[in-house]
Every structure is written in C-alpha cells, then in structure tokens.
C-alpha cells in the first residue's frame, strides 16, 4: 500500500532520534559530554538536511502541481470538433425500402422497440415504420426529438406523416458522427458535458470504484483497507483501493509500470487535483478520460465513446444493465472484454448490478429485469464501420486551409460534411470483393493488389465517398489523396477536347500511323495496346478504342503545350511532363485530382473543386463558415456534351464494352500504364462520377488493364449505387453514324451506331452498303426548324 507509506515516512525516520534524545540526558547528567556534542551535531545536520529535503519536496510538489493542473485544464477544455456525415433525407417518393431506412437507423444506434418508443428507437409495422427521432442541432438550427411514421410500397418511401397523421413533406434522420479531431492521433472521444452524464452512471461509479469520493482528499485510506478486506475475503480482486481521482491521474499518463516513484507521484497528483478542482469537475474529467477498451488501433476512452463502441448508442439511452457493463469493464478492459470473455464480463456486470441494488440505485424489479438481459454488446454496426479515416483525411485537408489546428481541436466545432455512408459502404464492399476475385482468378498472391476510389456527385461536385486502400477503416497510406500514379489513357479526353475545340468533330478521320520521335537522341516509338496499326479512323473510335498512335498524331498536331495547359484548366493539376509522352498519360496524378478533371466533363463543362465540407458551426451553433456550391465554366457546353457522347461510345463499343453497364447510358474511360502497373477507370452516369485505381504500393506489374481491373471495381460500385442514365441537353445537330467508319449509317447496315453531334453544314459520306443519303441543305434546315 504505497499510498499510505510516503506521508508517514518522515515521521518514522524522526522517531528514533527523539527517543535517543530523551534517553541521553537521563543517562549522563554531565552536560557538554561527547555524546551531547555528537547529538547536537547530528541535530544540526538533520535540520539542514531536513530543510533541503523540505525544499526539494516543495519544489517537486510545485512541479507536480503545474504538470497535473495543466494536463487537467487542457483535457477538460478540449472539446474536439465533431464531424458529421450527410443525413438521410426522408420524403415521399424517395427510393428507399424499409430495409434501407432501418439499416441507416441501426447505423445511428437507433434500436427496435415496442409500445411507445423513446427517442432513438423505432418500431416496425406492416409496411410502415414508426421512428422517434432524436433531437439534433443541424446547420439551420436545432430540431427537437419527434415522432414520424413512414410507409413503404415496393422499395419506395411513399408517405411520411407526423403522429396526428399530417403529411410531412421532408424530414431527415440525424447525421452519423463519423469522427472527431482530438489532439493526440489515434484517440477519439465523444466528450460529455456534466449534464449529459446519466446520474445512475455517476452513482454506480462511486459505489463500485470510490465510495468516499465526495469526502476524501484525493486518496482514501479507509477505501484501501476496505478493498483489502473485501478482496481477502473473496479471494480475488473485486475492489481496488485507488480513488477515481487517482485513476484519472493514472489514465492521463498511461504508465503501467508499478514503481514506487510512480505510485507516489500519482498519489501526490491526486491530492493536488482534489485540492485544486471541484469534485464534479474531476468526476466529469474521469467520465471522459477513462480507458474502456481497444478498437483495433484505436483506444476507446470515455463513457461517451464507450457507449457507442459497445452498444452503438448515445450514453443517455443506456439501460441499467448496460451502465453496469461499462462500469464492470473499467476494472480490466482486456480481462473483462465483453467480446472475448463474455462470461467474465457478465459475472462482473451482475456483481455491479447487485451493488446497485444494495445501494438503492435500482429497484428490485429493475435489478431482476437487468440481470435477465444478456450483455447486449453489438458487433457489426460498431464504430469500425463508422470510421472512415480516408475520408477524414480529406476533411482535415480542407479544414487545414481554413482553421488553425487549435481551433479544430479545442473549441467544440460541429463540422458537416458530404460523406454519404451508404455510398461509402458500397465502395468499401466493392473494392474488397473485386480485389479478392481478381487475385483469385489471376492466381496472384492474396493481398498484393491495392486500390483507391473516389465518388463525387456530378451535380454538386461533393465527394460522397472515398477509399484510400482496400481495407476499409484502416488508417494507413491514403492512395486516393496521396498516391500519384501515371494516369495513362485517362488523359486522352483532354486531347480530344482540344481537338473538338479546334474544329474537329467526332467523325473527323484521324491517322492511326506509326510515330517515331527523336528527343535527346532517344527514339520514342509508342504502340497501340494490341500493337496493331489501324490507319484512318474516325475520332470517336480513336478515343473509344483508346488508340495510342492516332492520339499521339493528333496531340502532336494540336501541340503538347496546349494539351498540358488544357489538362491544367480542367483538373487544377499542372502537368510536370511537357513532352509528347504526356499524350499517353505519362503524368502522375492522384485519384482525387482525376475526379476533379472528369467532374468537369461530367457536369457539362463546369469545374467544381471536389468538396467535402458543407459548413462549420461553433459551439453555440453559429456558422463559422459555409461552403456553398461554386462552379466555373471551363468547357463550352456543346463541346463538353460532344465529348461525353464520345465517352458513351467508348463504353458501348470501345474499351469499356466489357462493363455490365456498357449500354446503360454511362460514359467512361479506361487507363492502363506500362507493364500493367496501374489500372484506372473514370466513369459517370447521370448522378455519380466514380474514379477507381488498382495497382501495388511498390509499383509492380499487376497484369491488369483498365478494363480488366479498375473497370471491374467501377462496375461493382455502380451495381450498388444503381445506374441512372446520362441526360443530354437537347441538340439539333445529331447524326447517326457507324462507330467503326464514322460514316452515316442506320440499323440496316451497321450494328455499331452512335449518335454524334456534327456541325450542321458538314456533309457526311454514307457507310458502304447503307441505302441512305445525306439530306440536302434545305432538308436539314427544315428538319432543324421543326424542332421548335
């Protein structure tokens, strides 16, 4: 019991001396004897040493005081910024099944209940769902908790109403909290204010961990003795002697070495804390600090996060049995780990429940009911699934540009982001499954491939989901933001855009002919993917089939510098490569930059920087910043639309034709780099732009082309998102041509027809074997007019 030792130590050392002092005069009456002089010298020396010791102790105490006070104050006021995902919008007509909504509710920790469900619960009926929404402070202000009823028919939400039966046009679930910024990396908190801590938890903590908390001065001798007695009687450690204050200090410094010095320091700090701060403050700090378990690499500290981690609920929704479980775990989060040692955890929980009954915290009925409950800890929907480190990197990067680091970690901000959890889940699953399939089918060693993916909204430019690697929730190298890899043929649309802007159209014939360029005495002779030479090909097919030779010929004519500049205006990325190899994508970009570039094409020519943060509120709910949609036109709309049509043809007949959505009205482009080191795909439908990449971290060949690798991931993602065909602005210059030849054709003579915009005065040849003739100028004028 080293706690009691140290204060007594000075007294013990003093006692023998005083005894000697009393005896000596009695034995030798003669003053100034040798003995007396020795005694006096000893006294003096002792006094001097005592003074020095006292000064040292005072200095040490002062040091401890400064340290512990700074730590306590620092932690107490560190209310981290909380980051929220996009909330799910509920409105009549939404394509949501009851399963979709309950899944989202479970993600938020809503639970199924019967009777009149309390906030944070729902009740399933026949085709209907009653939800008692929690209160939440949104960007536009607080929403009180309220009840709603949803009715579903055939996978659609058909009706939303309030308890009185009135129709509700629109309401949203509370958004999922996806993380927080806290100073030390790897730590995460759900910080609770004193009034958010359930009184039952506070009282239970006291009776189990520290009965005399309200009276003792930071340490508790009686508690130590009692704990000793209880443990000896029980033959096992049931109670500890450390006060909550001591445990708090211990937790601050997370040092498990059992040295006397550490124990003494802990004790002194506890006494100082107790003297300096009010009991409720100390208790609140304890509630937010104590270690409750380990979630992979992440330590679970505090009851707020603990409630989420073990029960996926906010703390105020915990039942007595769940509170008892949390309190039970404190003693040894690994020994009483409810997942690994449920029987131990359950026994300890029941022990806690018994003490709660004894102390009158719960009624006998409550006690019986609580004891009948199983542990009720949840897996599946745990924080693991709610933890999106790759996306959080993006949020942090965006915020770093706006705020001082201190603001983000200390002032309790609410940060609303564009993350869409169902979409995020889709891409994580799609990547995991597809990579495993690819490795198996290609006989690659397991886990050799890596991947990244970005999903944005083509309308708003918002990043809905982001995967930085194949393992979801793994906070490692973020390939979506940081892996710069050559983009290969993903660059080609830029060259064809430049061509369209220079007077070419999709039927213009290009020459797919060998190229031999000598630069710095080195000859550059690129090849087509299949090493064939195609000769004259229409522009739409040169892009669609990703013909290298035709593209290089075209790019050289347009000018490499011009192409490089155009790439910059589309993506915001300035290419370092200003040589002809740029024309084949020898330029490294990150998947996020690629998303910015293709977003400009997908949105009809309007650049939007991929956006993650919608708004930031301060602790009082006032907006500190809002980030509304900003667009900037960078491509003429008709040119953008023409290019998108060409990329649609690429899906239908070109390099994207193996996609299961090849004919579903989507546009896309494959990218493959030398020796199959990088496999890229960028494609979009009417709603989502998805960029995928597969490669290895050490840049080894993968055997995968854009079509056989990244496109598979893209397909798997789009399958989960449900494809909505592209919407083209009306055009009165469309002509139907044969994809292979670029000549006018119809169903009778070609199986690969594409509708392409062609300048209205361009006269087109007819595909051989087609009995159609190009219309005369007057016919074209008349036809064109009839569109109005």
């Amino acid at each position, binding site marked *: 019991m080293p706690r009691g030792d140290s204060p007594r130590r000075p007294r013990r050392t003093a006692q023998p001396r005083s005894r000697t002092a009393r005896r000596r005069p009695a034995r030798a009456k003669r003053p100034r004897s040798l003995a007396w002089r020795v005694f006096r010298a000893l006294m003096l020396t002792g006094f001097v040493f005592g003074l020095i010791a006292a000064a040292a102790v005072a200095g040490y105490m002062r040091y401890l005081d400064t340290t512990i006070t700074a730590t306590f104050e620092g932690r107490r006021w560190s209310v981290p910024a909380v980051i929220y995902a*996009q909330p799910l*919008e509920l*409105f*009549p*007509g939404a394509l949501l099944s009851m399963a979709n909504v309950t899944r989202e509710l479970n993600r938020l920790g809503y639970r199924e209940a019967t009777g009149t469900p309390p906030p944070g619960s729902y009740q399933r009926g026949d085709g209907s769902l009653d939800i008692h929404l929690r209160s939440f402070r949104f*960007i*536009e202000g607080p929403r009180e908790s309220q009840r709603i009823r949803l009715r579903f028919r055939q996978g659609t939400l058909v009706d939303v109403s309030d308890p009185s039966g009135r*129709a509700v*046009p*629109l309401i949203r679930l509370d958004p999922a909290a996806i993380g927080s910024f806290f100073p030390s990396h790897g730590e995460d908190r759900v910080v609770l204010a004193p009034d958010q801590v359930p009184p039952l938890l506070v009282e239970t903590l006291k009776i189990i961990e520290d009965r005399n908390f309200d009276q003792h001065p930071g340490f508790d001798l009686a508690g130590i003795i009692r704990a000793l007695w209880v443990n000896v009687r029980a033959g096992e450690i049931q109670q500890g002697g450390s006060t909550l204050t001591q445990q708090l200090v211990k937790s601050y410094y997370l040092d498990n070495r059992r040295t006397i010095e550490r124990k003494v320091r802990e004790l002194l700090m506890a006494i100082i804390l107790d003297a300096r701060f009010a009991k409720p403050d100390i208790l609140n700090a304890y509630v937010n600090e104590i270690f409750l378990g380990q979630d992979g690499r992440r330590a679970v500290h505090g009851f707020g996060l603990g409630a989420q981690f073990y029960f996926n609920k906010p703390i105020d929704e915990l039942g007595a049995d769940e509170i008892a479980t949390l309190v039970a775990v404190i003693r040894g989060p690994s020994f009483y780990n409810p997942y690994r040692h449920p029987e131990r955890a359950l026994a300890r929980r029941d022990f806690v429940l018994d003490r709660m009954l004894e102390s009158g915290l719960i009624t006998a009925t409550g006690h019986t009911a609580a004891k009948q409950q199983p542990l009720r800890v949840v897996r599946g929907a745990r924080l693991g699934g709610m933890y999106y480190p790759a996306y959080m990197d993006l949020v942090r990067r965006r915020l770093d540009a706006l705020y001082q680091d201190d603001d983000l970690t200390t002032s309790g901000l609410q940060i609303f982001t564009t993350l869409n959890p169902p979409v995020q889940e889709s891409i994580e699953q799609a990547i995991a499954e597809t990579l495993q399939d690819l490795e198996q089918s290609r006989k690659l060693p397991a886990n050799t491939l890596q991947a990244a993916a970005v999903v944005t*909204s*083509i*309308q*708003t430019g*918002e990043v809905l989901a982001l995967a930085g690697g194949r393992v979801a929730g793994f906070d490692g190298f973020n390939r979506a933001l940081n892996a710069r890899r050559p983009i290969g043929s993903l660059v080609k649309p830029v060259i064809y855009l430049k061509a369209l802007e220079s007077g070419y159209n999709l039927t213009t014939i290009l020459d797919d002919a060998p190229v031999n360029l000598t630069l710095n005495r080195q000859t550059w002779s690129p090849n087509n993917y299949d090493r064939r030479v195609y000769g004259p090909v229409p522009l739409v097919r040169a892009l669609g089939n990703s013909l290298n030779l035709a593209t290089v010929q075209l790019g050289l004519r347009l000018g490499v510098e011009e192409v490089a500049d155009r790439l910059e205006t589309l993506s915001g990325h300035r290419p370092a490569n200003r040589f002809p190899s740029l024309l084949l994508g020898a330029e490294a970009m990150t998947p996020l930059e690629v998303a910015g570039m293709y977003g400009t094409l997908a*949105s*009809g*020519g*309007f650049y939007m920087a991929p956006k993650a943060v*919608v*708004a930031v509120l301060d602790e009082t709910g006032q*907006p500190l910043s*809002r980030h*509304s*949609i*900003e*667009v*900037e*036109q*960078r*491509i*003429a*709309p*008709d*040119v953008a639309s023409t290019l998108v049509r060409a990329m649609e043809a690429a899906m239908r007949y070109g390099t994207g034709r193996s996609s299961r959505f090849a004919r579903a009205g989507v546009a896309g482009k494959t990218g493959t780099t030398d020796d199959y080191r990088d496999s890229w795909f960028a494609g979009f439908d*009417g*709603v989502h732009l998805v960029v995928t990449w597969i490669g290895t971290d050490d840049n080894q060949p993968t055997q995968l082309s854009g079509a056989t690798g990244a496109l598979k991931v893209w397909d798997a993602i789009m399958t989960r998102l449900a494809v909505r065909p592209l*919407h083209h*602005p*009306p*055009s*009165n*210059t469309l002509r139907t041509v044969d994809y292979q030849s670029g000549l006018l054709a119809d169903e009778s003579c070609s199986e690969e027809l594409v509708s392409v915009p062609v*300048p*209205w005065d361009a006269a087109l040849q007819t595909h051989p074997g087609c009995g159609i003739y190009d219309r005369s100028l*007057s016919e074209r*004028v*008349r036809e064109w*007019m*009839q*569109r*109005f």
Partner: protein
Amino acid sequence: MIGVASVRVAIVLVSLALAGCAAYVPPPVTDRTPAPPPPPIDETPAPEALPPPVAPAPPPAPEPEPPRQDPATLALLGQSQRAVEAGNVDEAIAYVERALRMNGQDVELWLRLAELQLLAARPANAEQLAQRAIVMAGSRADWQRRGWLIVADAREARGDREEAERIRFQWRSYRG
C-alpha cells in the same frame, strides 16, 4: 400561353436570320463577355436566301406548366424564402443546396441558387451558376431568360453595366 407560342415562332425566325449558329445559345467560355442569345422577338427580319420555312406546325396547345416540383423541394424552397425574408441569405442558400442534393437536374433550383448568390453579393459565382442553369435549360426559353437576366444583374454588380444592358435589351420583350 400565347406568349409561349409566339416566342417559339419568333425564335425560329430569328434563328433563321442567324443561320449558321447551330444552337441558339452561344457558348460563352473563354470570352470574357459572352454573347447573349439572339434576341427572341422584335427584330424579326424575313429570312433571305433560304427556302421559305414551312410554317412550323404550331406546337400542340402549349403544355400547361405542370406542378413540376415535388412537395419536398417546395418545402425547402419555402423555407429558403422565409430565410431570405428573415435576412439570412446564407441559410436560404443552404436550403436550396439541400434540395439540389436530392434533385440536381432541377433547373429552377440552379436558377434560384444563382439568384441567392447574387443576393449574397457574390456575383461572380452567381453568373457561373446562371450559365450552368442556362445550359441545363435546353429549349426552355423562360428559364433561359431568367438565367440571362441573372447574368445581366451579375454583370452590373461587377461594374459591366453596358453588357448588362445589352442582355436585358435582348430579352426585354419576352414574358415567360
């Protein structure tokens, strides 16, 4: 109703006069002062050197404006309007953006967003948003007009009064 039909005719005639333009919305991109669309009415020069147009069959009774927006969008627009009236334009923008997240194809939402950005004294972004709405508007002349008038206001707010007046003049007689 008559307005819509006559505008269609007018557009055809004017377009003929400008035969050469493929689409009647010139795409302003690199140009700092984009040319507004051809004037929709007034100057209706008879086309020359071109075969007389077959009178375009008057379109079937101009379709009555369908109540195009769903209750959710209308609710958000209502809240947005109330925010404007309460003097909180940024909040009004947030409501419209929320509606756009649900239905990004809704041209009127983009127009509204552009108008609100103008109200929030961000004319550059307002103009770009209006341009985007104009592209999405396709053949809807009423939306085009509304978009161009936002562009005009944005131009004026940025000090380009001349261009603003030019755009307004070209759209002045059209009543959508």
